[in-house]
């Protein structure tokens, strides 16, 4: 039965323990870097444990909901999430996430692995790149004013106002982020950062938490599709959800206190390595 598999047959107990530990690390690092747990969980399940990528995607999307909802509660108390920006952009992300989730089974798993690897590489690059805060309070476009997207956030010197730019560009980029999210079962935080930081020029403190806040809703939309299709298996989803949530909770407590620059470099190297593994396995048809 396991003749042609390189993976050792494993009992439910051992499998649960390994996934639980991996998910804890994924949740911790995902929360510290703002990229979410999916980028670690999917390679762990597919490359290390030999789980079919469709199951891995289903479990990962659950981890995205847990990460997002678990740490959003901590962020929200800081008062820096812009609910209006989040809600408006969710129009794009929910529609496209469902489209992504519907088409994902019709795509060859090898292609999914390659796409996943490319997105991973891109996320790693985005993480180490020096981020420049483009935010300002110049008069923004009519659409941003009409949608009441401009806001303010607390700083050491009191409240700071900011204006939102290029709403349509950001909306379209979010659509792409949603497709990727539904296709691969990840939060696609890196693409959301591009949409919010670079295109819409929202300040970091607001974009990071708003993106995290949106992920739960986006992931829920595609999770429903996965659930109906049987991609969410309780045996995988249980340790993934519990591990990631615990890790994310610990991560959000550390996040307020520490600088994560060094951690990001280390994490970027690990992610790049996983990405190349995924691409290699995809190209050689092992996944």
């Amino acid at each position, binding site marked *: 039965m396991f003749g042609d598999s390189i993976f050792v047959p494993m*009992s*439910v107990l051992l499998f649960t323990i390994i996934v639980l530990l991996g998910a804890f690390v994924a949740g911790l690092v995902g929360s510290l870097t703002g990229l979410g747990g999916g980028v670690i969980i999917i390679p762990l399940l597919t490359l290390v444990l030999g789980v079919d990528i469709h199951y891995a995607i289903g479990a990962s999307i659950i981890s995205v909901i847990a990460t997002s909802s678990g740490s959003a509660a901590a*962020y929200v108390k800081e008062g820096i999430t812009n609910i209006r920006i989040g809600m408006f952009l969710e129009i794009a992300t929910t529609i496209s996430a*469902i489209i992504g989730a519907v088409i994902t089974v019709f795509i060859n798993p090898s292609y999914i692995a390659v796409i996943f690897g490319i997105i991973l590489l891109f996320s790693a690059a985005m993480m180490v790149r020096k981020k420049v805060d483009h935010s300002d309070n110049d008069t923004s476009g009519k659409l941003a004013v009409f949608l009441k997207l401009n806001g303010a956030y607390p700083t050491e010197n009191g409240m700071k106002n900011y204006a939102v730019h290029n709403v349509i560009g950001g909306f379209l980029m979010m659509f792409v982020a949603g497709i990727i999210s539904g296709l691969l079962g990840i939060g696609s935080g890196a693409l959301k950062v591009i949409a919010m930081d670079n295109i819409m020029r929202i300040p970091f403190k607001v974009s990071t938490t708003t993106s995290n806040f949106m992920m*739960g809703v986006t992931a829920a939309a595609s999770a*429903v599709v996965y659930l109906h299709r049987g991609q969410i298996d*309780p045996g*995988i989803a*249980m340790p993934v959800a519990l591990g990631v*949530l615990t890790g994310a909770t610990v991560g959000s407590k550390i996040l307020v206190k520490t600088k994560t620059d060094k951690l990001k470099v280390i994490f970027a190297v690990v992610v790049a390595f996983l990405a190349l593994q995924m691409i290699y396995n995809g190209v050689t048809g092992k996944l």
Partner: protein
Amino acid sequence: MSKENKNFFADRDIQIILGTLLRVGVIASMSVVFIGGLVYLTFNHSEIVNYSQFDSAKTGFSTISEIFIELGDLKGSAMIQFGILLLIFTPIMRVVFSIFSFLIERDYLYVLIGAFVLCVILFSLSNKLVG
């Protein structure tokens, strides 16, 4: 200027309530998953896992009604799946709650936007997308 500030603090109240709502949802759903996980491990711990090939028929519990039916038998996996379902509903409830809070604020544009997002998710829930 003063209007913007007022908006911010009104939003802040909503956000604190929403944050609490999310936390309650996550804790409740994860408690169910945890208990289900214990039951599942107690009865199934020595089984051999086999997830090497995706089979949409194997998982079971792929509709909400199925999960509820199996839940009656106190099966661990059904309890886990029920907890997962609660977790999925947590952010959806946030959308519902946001719509109400925008309604209280008389921000009808965002009531509309929120309602649209909710409709998209409900359409996905209707199970018409997976053949």
